[in-house]
């Protein structure tokens, strides 16, 4: 009625100053209908909605151009041909599978290679990948924009002679020159043969995204200096798995769970395996599963969960122990499972520990006897202090939520899936206890190894990347003949952290510059390196991602500490700026990797491939130098002199590190088929997969498509990009030992059956063919089964060996029950616990959540990811706290970082406040994935076109052109054969889509960074058509602060994890402050690292005889047993 009453006349419309026809957009055309398209196989509507054609069409798949519908479809325009040039373009694709490399999940990708231009037109998922199921997240599809990033490094770079590191003067060099210089330095160092030399050539990997290849290289080099980023990532997540099951990590069965209990947002939001996990979680919820998210920040997952538990950071163990208390005392224990699979008998037989428990007041009296019933009574008493009241007080979670959680936990039965990884684990000192207590609660309900339950990683993964030894002259099958490494590197495994889960990698610059520390351990009889001969990060940006970045800069610039450095990296980074060499290796579609992850209860592997090389080979092309086929292919494709790690290391070992074979390294990587030459990709992977995955080998060698191929297993993977060896792996610890031909088989290893014996505790031992005794299983109820990988072969909720390694009070899942215990047990109390928040403006800063479109430092080369990720990294502050402190949305605030161990201040970063209800009061959230920087917009490195450089080829790039397939550049990588880089005029930008320019100052004590220029629209000739939208940039690239540099190193005293969370003091920005500014007192940060080391750790001492327990994982290279032995002088 309102409209009728207020009706006005529109007659005035005739009086517009411009006629309607000029105002309307004019969207109608009156084209004539195109010629009949009956002859064409294309239709305007597809036969199927599947994104993917059947695999048998992958080599030749035609598809209408994606813009055809905008032009009215083929009914109007017809299909493009010589006679109908205005018709719809038909893409002529070859589809080659590979795997994403932008996070660790290894989702399948397919590259859709346009044959007519020999370019990748798009990356899609791989429908054959049963875990990723043909889907990808934004990062997967971004592989294309990374491939055609105008700033990708086009050829090997070398620091200009006479310039200093970080001066930004570069020259173009050849692969051969770089490999000769680096290989000689490596060879000369290794040739010395002493202990120090085995610790002085360091490889430092970011996300490996492969399962064992480079570790195998380092093993054949005889070096204990393979280093990884793991302790800034997941050590506290892995420690509970190691202590409980001696396994590396959790492996949940999301898809079949009834309760999905996420500890942090990681699995479903942005973290580990999120694309695959999120899909499985959605499937489970569709079937009625409940989702609980425990996270002080309301992540995307928390926002759509059935229950959001915002526990104060580091108090999560209390939530689990509250559940355990109720499960025990309300008699909801799965007694059958607990009796069978807990090592309760070990505890009940350990009188000394039971006495300790009484003495500490954990229990009031010793158990009546050693029976299982008495064990349960003991547990009931032990965990009874974790009441609802206590849990509410310590965690700040409201009582009704905890009660609801318990009800859901019980409702789910044995189908509870969880994952212990970042946030809680990575953020907090003692964060590992969260996983310990979590496993305990889950296991009490029997939800371990069940359908829909929680299990462990090693049953669900395939690691064969380093096991192609049978293709080489020297390694033997699976690397059996490679000598074990005889060294134990203190730089990566410092004696203060004997139980460190992985290397203390983020302390590398601290340890290398801490002369006092070096002297201390040298005086006590260890051989501690004070410098590195060669330092090789790979696709890694340690300067930016590690805490205390200015310390990294100091050490990287110091040529006495780091004698020679190179990064194997496809892109520019903060680290590369300070390197001696930057050698461009490929991205997800440009390299070979075997890559498997535990994303579902199955054993699957992706096969990552350089797709353009594969397309060339499948079209009939042959490389001139088979050892450098990928390099030749990438030059032919116009990507530049871009290579891959596998072929690089094959060639390095055979021709550059040990050219005359005198070090015994050459033969390890020499081809058995062509001695003297490096092993080839097909040879290596045919052996690596074929020797270790029997079902795959059987399938490939019986498949008519591959059975007559020279390398059937390799060829199968080349075409599929994926293999699943085993599916639906549940209750694997119940696998019975197999007996065949006088041998007993456990976990695939064979032992003479005659050597087997069963101990009083049921543990079955046997002696392998090399004379080494191993625990191979356990006898339970008369059955001989494989059990878990622990010493007791059961789940160890009493970790007896921890007592010998000085952590007696933490051998059981525990959390201090009062303030006195909190003070005494500070090792498992978060350094950001609320007890440290004494000042009005003090907060616990949660830093370690990921952003779904960015992975650490791997995104700034993708224009798509950069466009969607701008200005997304503010400080989340609760509305209540913001009001109290007077902060409004958009305000710049100084975030001062204060250490709660040393009491020292680290400096501050300036960030933007966003008040929200989505964060627990008293805590803040600001992801540490923001704040990339560079020192200049562009560098000039002449292409040298006029300098006798050679063209990449004469024939047009076209896979259907026989001339093109006949050509290949000669002598690639050698002097005089440097190729002309397409449309490269001598100057390259540096991450022009994503990284703003900053000014950095540092004086050895204090460091500052200030952004001076945002990114701007630009024009590029390189991959010009693909980047024709570079003029449309609307963002300035400023997306957070480089807070990592302000953060001091916080090594967890047990796991060695860098505990990322920070105690911070907030104050308004001061005059001159801009969002993004940082100020760092890195002299204080050094003292903070020392304080955590000296006040909290329980390291080796004069009573020590071993570096580390022999039975727990010591990743990457296999050590000679003698390397574990140690004598520490008093």
């Amino acid at each position, binding site marked *: 009625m309102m*409209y*009728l009453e*207020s*009706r*006005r006349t*529109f*007659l*005035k*419309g*005739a*009086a*517009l*100053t*411009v*006629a*309607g*026809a000029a*105002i*309307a*957009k*004019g*969207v*109608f*055309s*009156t*084209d004539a209908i195109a010629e009949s398209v009956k002859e064409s196989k294309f239709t*305007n*509507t597809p036969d199927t909605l599947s994104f993917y054609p059947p695999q048998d069409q992958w080599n030749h798949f035609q598809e209408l151009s994606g*813009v055809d*519908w*905008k*032009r*009215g479809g083929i009914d*109007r325009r017809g299909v493009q041909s010589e006679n109908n040039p205005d018709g719809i373009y038909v893409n002529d694709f070859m589809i080659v599978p590979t795997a994403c490399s932008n996070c660790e999940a290894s989702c399948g990708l397919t590259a859709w290679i346009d044959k007519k231009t020999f370019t990748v037109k798009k990356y899609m998922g791989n429908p054959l990948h049963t875990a990723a199921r043909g889907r990808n997240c934004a990062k997967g599809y971004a592989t294309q924009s990374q491939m055609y990033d105008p700033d990708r490094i086009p050829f090997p770079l070398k620091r200009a002679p006479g310039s200093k590191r970080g001066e930004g003067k570069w020259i173009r060099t050849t692969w051969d020159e770089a490999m000769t210089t680096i290989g000689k330095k490596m060879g000369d160092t290794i040739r010395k043969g002493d202990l120090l030399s085995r610790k002085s050539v360091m490889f430092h990997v970011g996300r490996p995204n492969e399962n064992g290849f480079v570790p195998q290289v380092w093993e054949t080099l005889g070096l204990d200096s393979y280093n990884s980023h793991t302790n800034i990532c997941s050590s506290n997540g892995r420690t509970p798995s190691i202590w409980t099951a001696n396994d590396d990590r959790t492996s949940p069965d999301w898809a079949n769970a009834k309760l999905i209990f996420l500890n942090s947002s990681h699995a479903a939001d942005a973290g580990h395996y999120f694309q695959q996990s999120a899909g499985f979680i959605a499937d489970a919820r569709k079937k009625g599963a409940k989702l609980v998210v425990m996270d002080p920040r309301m992540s995307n997952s928390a926002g759509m969960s059935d229950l959001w538990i915002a526990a104060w950071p580091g108090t999560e163990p209390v939530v689990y122990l509250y559940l355990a208390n109720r499960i025990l005392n309300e008699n909801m224990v799965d007694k059958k499972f607990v009796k069978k699979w807990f090592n309760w008998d070990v505890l009940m037989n350990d009188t000394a520990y039971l006495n300790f428990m009484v003495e500490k007041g954990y229990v009031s009296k010793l158990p009546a006897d050693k029976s299982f019933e008495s064990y349960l009574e003991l547990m009931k008493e032990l965990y009874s202090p974790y009441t609802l009241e206590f849990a509410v007080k310590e965690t700040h979670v409201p009582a009704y939520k905890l009660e609801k959680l318990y009800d859901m936990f019980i409702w789910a039965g044995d189908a509870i899936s969880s994952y212990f990884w970042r946030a809680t684990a990575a953020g907090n000192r003692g964060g590992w206890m969260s996983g310990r207590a979590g496993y305990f609660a889950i296991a009490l309900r029997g939800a371990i190894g069940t359908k829909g339950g929680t299990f462990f990683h090693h049953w669900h993964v395939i690691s064969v990347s380093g096991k192609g030894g049978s293709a080489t002259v020297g390694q033997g099958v699976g690397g059996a003949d490679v000598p074990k490494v005889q060294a134990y590197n203190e730089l990566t495994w410092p004696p203060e952290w004997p139980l460190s889960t992985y290397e203390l990698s983020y302390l590398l610059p601290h340890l290398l510059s801490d002369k006092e520390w070096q002297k201390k351990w040298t005086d006590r009889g260890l051989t501690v390196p004070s410098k590195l001969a060669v330092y090789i990060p790979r696709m890694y940006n340690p300067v930016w991602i590690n805490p205390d970045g200015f310390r990294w800069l100091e050490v990287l610039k110091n040529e006495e500490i780091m004698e020679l450095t190179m990064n194997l990296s496809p892109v520019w980074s903060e680290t590369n700026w300070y390197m001696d060499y930057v050698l461009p290796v490929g991205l997800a579609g440009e390299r070979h990797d075997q890559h498997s992850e535990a994303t579902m209860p199955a054993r699957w592997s992706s096969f990552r491939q350089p797709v353009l090389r594969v397309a060339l080979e499948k079209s009939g092309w042959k490389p001139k130098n088979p050892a450098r086929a990928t390099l030749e292919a990438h030059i032919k494709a116009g990507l530049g002199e871009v290579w891959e790690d596998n072929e690089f290391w094959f060639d390095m070992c055979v021709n550059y590190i040990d050219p005359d074979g005198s070090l015994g390294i050459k033969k390890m990587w020499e081809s058995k088929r062509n001695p003297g030459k490096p092993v080839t990709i097909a040879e290596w992977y045919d052996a690596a997969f074929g020797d270790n995955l029997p079902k795959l080998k059987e399938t490939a060698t019986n498949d008519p498509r591959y059975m007559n191929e020279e390398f059937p297993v390799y060829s199968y993977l080349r075409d599929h990009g994926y293999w699943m060896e085993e599916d639906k792996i549940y209750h694997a610890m119940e696998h019975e030992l197999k007996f065949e031909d006088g041998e007993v088989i456990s976990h695939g290893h064979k032992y003479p059956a005659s050597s087997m014996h069963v101990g009083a505790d049921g543990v079955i031992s046997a002696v392998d063919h090399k004379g080494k005794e191993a625990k191979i299983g356990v006898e339970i109820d008369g059955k001989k089964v494989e059990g878990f990988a622990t010493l007791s072969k059961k789940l160890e909720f009493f970790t007896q060996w921890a007592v010998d390694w000085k952590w007696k009070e933490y051998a059981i899942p525990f959390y201090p029950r009062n303030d006195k215990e909190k003070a005494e047990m500070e090792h498992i109390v978060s350094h950001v616990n609320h007890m440290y928040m004494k000042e009005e403006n003090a907060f616990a800063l949660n830093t370690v959540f990921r952003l779904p479109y960015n992975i650490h430092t791997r995104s700034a080369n993708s224009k798509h990811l950069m466009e969607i990720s701008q200005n997304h990294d503010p400080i989340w502050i609760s509305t209540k706290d913001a009001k109290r402190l007077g902060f409004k949305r958009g305000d710049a605030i100084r975030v001062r970082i204060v250490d709660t161990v040393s009491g020292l201040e680290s400096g501050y970063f300036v960030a933007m406040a966003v008040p929200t209800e989505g964060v627990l009061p008293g805590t803040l959230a600001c992801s540490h994935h923001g704040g990339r920087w560079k020192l200049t917009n562009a560098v000039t490195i002449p292409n040298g076109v006029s300098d006798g450089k050679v063209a990449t080829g004469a024939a047009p790039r076209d896979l259907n052109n026989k001339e093109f397939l006949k050509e290949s550049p000669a002598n690639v990588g050698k002097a005089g054969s440097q190729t002309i880089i397409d449309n490269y005029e001598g100057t390259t930008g540096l991450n022009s889509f994503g990284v703003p320019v900053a000014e950095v100052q540092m004086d050895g004590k204090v460091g500052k960074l200030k952004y001076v220029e945002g990114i701007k629209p630009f024009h590029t000739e390189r991959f010009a058509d693909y980047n024709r939208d570079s003029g449309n940039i609307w963002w300035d690239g400023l997306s957070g602060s480089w807070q990592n540099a302000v953060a001091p190193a916080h090594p967890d005293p047990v796991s060695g994890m860098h505990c990322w969370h920070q105690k911070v003091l907030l104050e308004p920005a001061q005059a001159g402050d801009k969002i993004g500014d940082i100020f760092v007192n890195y002299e204080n940060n050094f003292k903070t690292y020392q304080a955590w080391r000296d006040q909290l750790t329980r390291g080796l001492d004069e009573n020590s005889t071993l570096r580390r327990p022999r039975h727990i994982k010591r990743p990457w290279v296999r050590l000679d047993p003698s390397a574990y032995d140690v004598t520490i002088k008093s």
Partner: protein
Amino acid sequence: MEEIIARSNVYALLSRVLLQELDHERLELFCTDETILEFLPHWRDWKFRNVERQKLLEEYLNPDFANLSLLHLIPYETFYTRADQMIETGGANPVTDFYSRYDFLVDYEVARVVSADHIGIEMEFMHHLCEAQLKAFRESDREASDELIRVQYEFLNTHLLKWAPMYLINMKYEARTPLYYDSAEMALEFILSDHEILSALVKA
């Protein structure tokens, strides 16, 4: 004749504002044409209307437009008329069939929409029908003129009126700038008013 011109102009005006973000030329018109300003009273009186044009587009109008036509509201007929709320982008869209009957084909490269039943396109179609009616009127082709009135009546009743009011009411509630608030209200009033005019003509 004045009525036909007015109707044609208003359809053109509304189709433009509902179809895409304004360009500088059209924005200028919306800021200066007195008749338009009279149609859009809140817009006329809005204090931010005089900020620098580029800023006005980038920081006020375009974000609002993106919200109203891309992010939170769906300006397509089939979204409102199909039980499954799917936009029919293929050949089974009755609106496309209607256009085809009169040899109208949408050029998607110009329109930047995913389907021909976008409100801006339906409005522009009505504008073209008015223009054709005007031509017939000027040429005194009574038969054609009557036929065109009937076609307009049919299209308005079988399509626009079936769904556009719902979209426009939603748009009015969602709008965060007076331009789109007023445009929604004006469009709603106009199609109701035009229904009356056409009903009267058809009956006559």
